[in-house]
Structures are given as C-alpha cells and as structure tokens.
C-alpha cells in the first residue's frame, strides 16, 4: 500500500478536464482529499465531482489567492492531494455554516465530526489533527478558534483563511457542500508520525508597547497614545496620514509567545482617526513588539525543513498554508521560484489571508507534515 501523499496540480480551465486530471493524480482510494482552487475555477462544482468519484473519502478545501505544490506555484489553478489509508486511519469533515450564528454553526459541525470520532476532547493530539479553512470576509477567525478551543482545547486545528487577491471573496468546501460564511473542518486520525509547524521569519525588536486600548482588530492605543502616532514615529513618517501599506508591511507588530513571533499585520484601510486596523485581534493589555525579519524567507524555509526532517525523516507529504504576504515578499525579492524548489517531497498548499494554529495569525506558514 502506497503511504505517500499523491497529488495533481492542474492548470486546465475546462471543469471535466480538471476533474479527470485531479482523479488521475490523487490516486485510487484515499482516506482523505484536500483541494485548493483559484477564484475563477469552479471549486464548489469540482469538489462535488471529486467527492462523487471518492464516496468513501472525506474531502475538504477552499479558494486560495494562489495554489502551491512541490516546485510549483500558480494562480487560478486547482490542486488536490489524496492522503492514503496507510497514513490516515480515520477522517471526517463538516461544514460550519455561520448563517444563523457562529456558535450554532460550529456546534452542528462538531456534532457531525463526533459521529465518527466520539468526543473530540478524548482524542490524543499525538495521533489526531484537525484542518480548518475559514472565510476571510467576516472576521470570524478569532472567535472560531475560541469556540473550538473551548470544546477541545488540546486538539490542534491547522489551516488558513480562504481568499482571492483583492480579499473580497472566499469559499470553503467539504464533501457536503460549499459556503462563504463559516469554516470547513476536517479531523484526521493518523497512523504515522506527523508534525504541525508554524514558521515566521520575523523576530521581535527591542521596541515594545502595551496595547492599552483595543477592540478586536482595532488597535486604538499603545501605551496610552493613539496607535497610529506610535506607528508613524516608529516607521519615521511625520504624520499618521503618511502611513501606507508599503511602509507598514515591513514593520509589523505582534506578540511573542514561547519566544516566537505571532504577527498582527495591518489590514486595509490601515488606519483611521489614530486607530490602526489589524488583520488579527489583540487582547487588551497584551505586550506587543515591533518586528523585523531575522532572515530571508528562503533561509527560513531551509531551516524549517531541516527541523522537520530531523523529526520525521523525509516527509511522505505536507500541506502548506502560506500567507499571501510572504508570497508578495518572495515576488518582490525575486526568490519565489527558489523558495518553491525547497520542499523535495509531495506538498500542496495555498496562499492564505491569515493562518491558523491554535489561533489566527499573519505572515506565517502553518503546515502539517506527514512522516
């Protein structure tokens, strides 16, 4: 029995051709299927076709800003991977539709998952992992992770926020359908070792503040002063009105947890009336640091993969949820192709509008590696 992840990365535009190519690439009998697609591809319809072709597999996926696979990156493509039964003992999926409220949607989804797994609180995190893809248009990520964490605090859900360039649309899918407001969840019981990773090439500077007034993603004050004034001083502009995405993106602010940077990157419209708009929420009273790159993204990925291989040996597959901000940095520095050549094992992924693992974060790679 093949125990490596199989995948296909398809740039066709005809739906039937895409579906045929995905089926040919995914393999005969996967336990689980993960797929990502560009906004101009018929993702929901494709997911129904693929789910119909594999009635015994659990399928999860979402729209992405661009799609990734070993050595490849492309916008407006479709990528799908099959996780074989030698890797996955059990898999289940559920769509959490937030149409009648976040808590209700998640409660329904959790009941569905627990039909397969029993209480999620009883699952051993050494052998179980969750995948999560969320819509990025309703600021749901933080509350979703709180509700999931209240239900099963030790079970990691890894993934990212669906989007397309422009960040005005997102969509998540499972075997059971597609939604634009909510999240898609998968729980996997794995038969072989695996590793969940988050990788961020930024580290804290010595410039720190306390978030003295915050409302969710709206950072009003740092150390009692309007946040935009503090940012303007830090990046070296005379007035907050001169703050732009270009001078803010290289100077993100974030938390430090266990010595690692958890970025809270700015988000359009960036600032208004002294308030900085972030893509991720902050708790009032948090200690925040301005961050700077510790190294470049290629060097960071090389270190990441060395660490993974030290733990697992050569991975049999991986799922990457890589921030669209990192992709932009790679494009600007001309390093995207070199970066994409680094994973020398089966990998698929997508470029995200925010990443997930325990909580919501920015400008990070979250990943699951299968050993």
């Amino acid at each position, binding site marked *: 029995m093949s125990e490596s992840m199989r995948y296909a990365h398809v740039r066709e535009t005809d739906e039937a051709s895409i579906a045929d190519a995905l089926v040919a690439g995914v393999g005969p009998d996967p336990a689980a299927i993960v797929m990502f697609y560009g906004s101009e591809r018929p993702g929901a319809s494709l997911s129904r076709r693929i789910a119909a072709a594999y009635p015994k597999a659990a399928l999860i996926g979402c729209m992405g800003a661009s799609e990734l696979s070993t050595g490849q990156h492309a916008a407006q493509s479709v990528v799908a991977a099959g996780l074989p039964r030698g890797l996955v003992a059990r898999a289940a999926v559920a769509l959490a539709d937030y149409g009648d409220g976040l808590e209700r949607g998640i409660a329904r989804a959790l009941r569905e998952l627990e039909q397969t797994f029993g209480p999620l609180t009883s699952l051993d995190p050494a052998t179980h992992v969750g995948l999560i893809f969320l819509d990025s248009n309703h600021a749901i990520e933080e509350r979703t992770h709180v509700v999931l964490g*209240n239900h099963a605090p030790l079970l990691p859900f890894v993934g990212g926020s669906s989007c397309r360039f422009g960040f005005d649309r997102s969509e998540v899918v499972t075997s059971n359908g597609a939604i634009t407001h909510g999240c898609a969840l998968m729980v996997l019981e794995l038969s072989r070792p695996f590793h969940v990773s988050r990788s961020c090439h930024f580290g804290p500077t010595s410039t720190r503040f306390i978030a003295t007034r915050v409302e969710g993603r709206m950072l009003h004050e740092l150390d009692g002063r309007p946040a935009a004034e503090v940012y303007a001083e830090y990046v070296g502009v005379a007035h907050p009105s001169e703050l732009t995405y270009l001078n803010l993106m290289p100077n993100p602010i974030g938390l430090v947890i266990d010595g690692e940077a958890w970025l809270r990157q700015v988000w359009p419209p960036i600032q208004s009336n002294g308030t900085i708009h972030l893509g991720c929420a902050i708790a009032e009273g948090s200690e925040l640091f301005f961050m700077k790159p510790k190294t470049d993204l290629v060097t960071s990925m090389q270190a990441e993969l060395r660490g993974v291989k030290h733990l697992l040996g050569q991975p049999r597959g991986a799922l990457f949820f890589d921030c669209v901000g990192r992709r932009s940095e790679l494009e600007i520095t001309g390093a995207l192709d070199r970066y994409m050549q680094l994973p020398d094992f089966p990998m698929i992924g997508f470029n995200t509008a925010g990443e997930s693992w325990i909580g919501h974060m920015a400008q990070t790679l979250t990943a699951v590696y299968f050993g």
Partner: protein
Amino acid sequence: MTLRALKQALVAELSSDTAFRFINTRVILRTGVDLQRAGDDELSAERLSLVRKELQEMGFLRGFDE
C-alpha cells in the same frame, strides 16, 4: 486567588509541558497574559478573573478552590 495558584492548578490537570505551552498560547491570545512570565504582582484582579474564566471555558479548573 493568585496567578501562581491558577498556574499550579492548570499544570496539575495537564499531562505534559507541551500541553501546558499549548494552553498557555490560547490564554495569551485571549487575555494577553503569559502564564509562564506574569508574576502575581503584575495582574489586576480583573485580568486574573479573565484568565480564570477563559481556562474554565476550556474545561479546566472546574474544581478550582480560591
């Protein structure tokens, strides 16, 4: 109630340091309080109550006795 007592009670319920750091990450994201770094003198009663509430919502400290 002290932060030290909350932390000790949480550690007693968890099976490993890895699990503690995982839950501590949740606490930091929700409250801004780092259980590994914050001292008892640094937290207001309000923030301490918030930490306790979040841990209890995760299912911990159910039998916690002040």
